């Protein structure tokens, strides 16, 4: 009280926070826990209270050089050390390095009897001793409420708790207090009445036999904080919290293009393929070749020397590798080269956030340029649409901000409307390639078309495609009077046309022959007429000459006659 009165004269300082180092938590809390204050972490059994507190201490000691004290009431330090070893925390080592002080306060009610007035000075002495021993900045109590079962005088306990929180505050120790969740209240013994700066509620629930962990900051006095329920995960690297609301449409875009791995498909996308960092949705019915299309993409990316991550919810790595080998795509060699990370797990194996976090972690570890998730629709098993939708949104956002080209495979139910993906994520994707079966004349044929592709003049043709021994080949569509023909009807149509063409050729040849003959006969006629003409001309020339000679002769004769008459 005195310090508050003193402080009121000065300008109020915003609440200082210290980072916990827990991935995601500092983001949602706007910087961490309130510095020098006590935070309650409450929740039901097995919700991860102790884990969170210990991670706060361990990360404080490891990352921020802030030693910590663990006051354990329920488990011995050995038990705790064993429990958190699975998270990769070696608290015994930290204790040996004097960065962590572990104290186990055994308060077995069975061997304690009470006689008269008492207080908890012993705990204070131990705490002070521990804080001084390591120069602690962080303290955790797990679980202070255990004292309620050991000591019957609750008046004393409550007074001592008040004293304890004041004591901690006076020393500027940032404290985490774990507390069991009570009926209709945050904690069983109403600890939140004393500590009201920050209350974090953890929840562990199961729905459809799948567990889901949630974290919510119920209260954080004097600061802005995320108020949503955030999914979190406890795995071999501790707690990770996934901020739901980090969806910001501000990612950088690339003009780079990456091949889809199918030359003919690239041709449909301006001849260049997908945009780098875009999300591609490959939707199709069962057996329409979705995995082959995505495997082609992976193959092409690995050939370019890019790292790929293939997350499979349907088939094991070896099964996919074997199947793809039959169409000429060797995925194993990329795995061996370390370019391809192929992870497969059952969609029902975990809850939705676990999937997301696992994918996040994989991406962080592998740092891929390309990611394939095959198929995202399998995540629907045991999850409702809304959650999958929000999860995929977060995932896509994450991938886009990381500049990763992502291919999502979506299985659409046969018989239904094909252009409606079950999870309705199509609006989130940049390129949507639809694979479909066309059933005609007793056979099924695969067709592909680009339903949309943002930012490019894509082909709007429906193309038939074939899965051959050397990958996927697209066949130019046959558009006849009866519509698009595929498969054998296309072949028969083509054969028919071929026959007609041959027939036409034959006809032409015959006509040409005939014309040639006629030309030749005409030419012969022309020759004979010309010969006749020549003869006529010769005759006419002869007549002229004869006539001329006769004229000359007559002249000559007349001269001779005149000479003979002797005239002049």
């Amino acid at each position: 009280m005195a310090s508050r009165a003193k402080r009121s004269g000065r300008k109020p300082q915003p609440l200082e926070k210290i980072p916990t180092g827990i991935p995601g938590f500092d983001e949602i809390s706007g910087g961490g826990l309130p510095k020098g204050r006590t935070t309650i972490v409450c929740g039901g059994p097995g919700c991860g209270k102790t884990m969170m507190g210990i991670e706060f201490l361990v990360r404080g000691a490891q990352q921020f050089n802030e030693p910590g004290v663990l006051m354990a009431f329920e488990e011995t330090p050995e038990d705790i050390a064993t429990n958190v070893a699975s998270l990769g925390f070696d608290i015994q080592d930290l204790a040996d390095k004097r960065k962590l002080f572990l104290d186990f306060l055994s308060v077995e009610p069975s061997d304690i009897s009470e006689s008269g007035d008492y207080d908890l000075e012993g705990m204070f002495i131990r705490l002070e001793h521990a804080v001084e021993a390591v120069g602690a900045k962080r303290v955790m109590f797990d679980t202070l409420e255990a004292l309620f079962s050991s000591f019957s005088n609750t008046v004393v306990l409550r007074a001592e708790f008040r004293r304890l929180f004041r004591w901690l505050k006076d020393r500027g120790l940032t404290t985490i207090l774990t507390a069991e969740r009570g009926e209709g209240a945050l904690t069983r013994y109403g600890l939140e009445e004393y500590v009201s700066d920050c209350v974090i509620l953890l929840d562990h629930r199961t729905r459809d036999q799948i567990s889901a962990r949630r974290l919510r900051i119920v209260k954080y006095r004097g600061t802005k904080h995320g108020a949503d329920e955030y999914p979190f995960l406890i795995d071999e690297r501790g707690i990770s919290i996934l901020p739901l609301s980090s969806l910001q449409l501000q990612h950088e875009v690339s003009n780079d293009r990456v091949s889809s791995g199918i030359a003919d498909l690239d041709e449909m996308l301006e001849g260049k393929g997908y945009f780098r960092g875009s999300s591609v949705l490959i939707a199709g019915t069962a057996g329409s070749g979705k995995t082959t299309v995505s495997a082609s993409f992976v193959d092409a990316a690995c050939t370019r020397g890019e790292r790929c991550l293939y997350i499979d919810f349907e088939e094991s790595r070896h099964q996919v590798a074997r199947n793809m080998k039959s169409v000429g795509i060797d995925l194993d060699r990329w795995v061996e080269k370390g370019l391809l990370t192929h992870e497969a797990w059952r969609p029902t194996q975990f809850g939705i956030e676990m999937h997301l976090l696992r994918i996040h972690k994989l991406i962080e570890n592998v740092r891929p340029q390309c990611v394939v998730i095959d198929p995202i629709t399998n995540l629907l098993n045991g999850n409702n649409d809304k959650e999958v939708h929000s999860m995929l949104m977060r995932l896509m956002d994450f991938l886009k901000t990381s500049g990763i080209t992502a291919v999502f495979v979506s299985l659409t139910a046969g018989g239904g409307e094909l252009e409606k993906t079950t999870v309705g994520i199509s609006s989130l994707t940049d390129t949507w390639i639809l694979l479909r079966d066309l059933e005609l004349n007793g056979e099924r044929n695969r067709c592909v078309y680009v339903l949309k592709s943002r930012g490019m003049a894509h082909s709007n043709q429906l193309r038939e495609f074939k899965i051959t021994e050397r990958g996927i080949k697209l066949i130019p569509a046959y558009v006849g009077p009866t519509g698009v023909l595929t498969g054998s009807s296309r072949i028969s149509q083509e054969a028919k046309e071929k026959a007609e063409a041959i027939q036409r050729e034959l006809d032409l040849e015959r006509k040409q022959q005939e014309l040639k003959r006629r030309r030749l006969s005409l030419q012969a006629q022309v020759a004979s007429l010309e010969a006749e003409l020549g003869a006529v001309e010769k005759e006419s020339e002869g007549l002229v000459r004869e006539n001329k000679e006769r004229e000359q002769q007559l002249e000559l004769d007349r001269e001779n006659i005149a000479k003979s008459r002797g005239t002049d």
Partner: protein
Amino acid sequence: MKPKAEILSRSKDILELRLYVAGQTPKSLTAISNLKKICAENSTTKYHVEVIDLVRNPSLARDHQIVAIPTLVRSLPVPVCKIIGDLSDTERVLVGLDIRISKTHTKKKTKSKAKD
């Protein structure tokens, strides 16, 4: 001639008692004087009493698992048992220490409670 109370100790050994206090607080002082009184009143049993001030030896609080102050620990005979408080309730101290007073001589009539 005879002592006014006959003390029946379950064990014939000496009682090893340790009283943990924290400084010269009123509660500590009350506990010390109460313990002295109890020992004096039950003089047939042999006691060995040690008073430990945790303010001077804070690490002992951890080593001996002391949370509440004052705490009286009977380390011998086993099993170890603890009594917390200023020991103002004599009867509970005796029960807690498993010292039974013979029914014939007790002022207060009580049924002896066997401690588990």
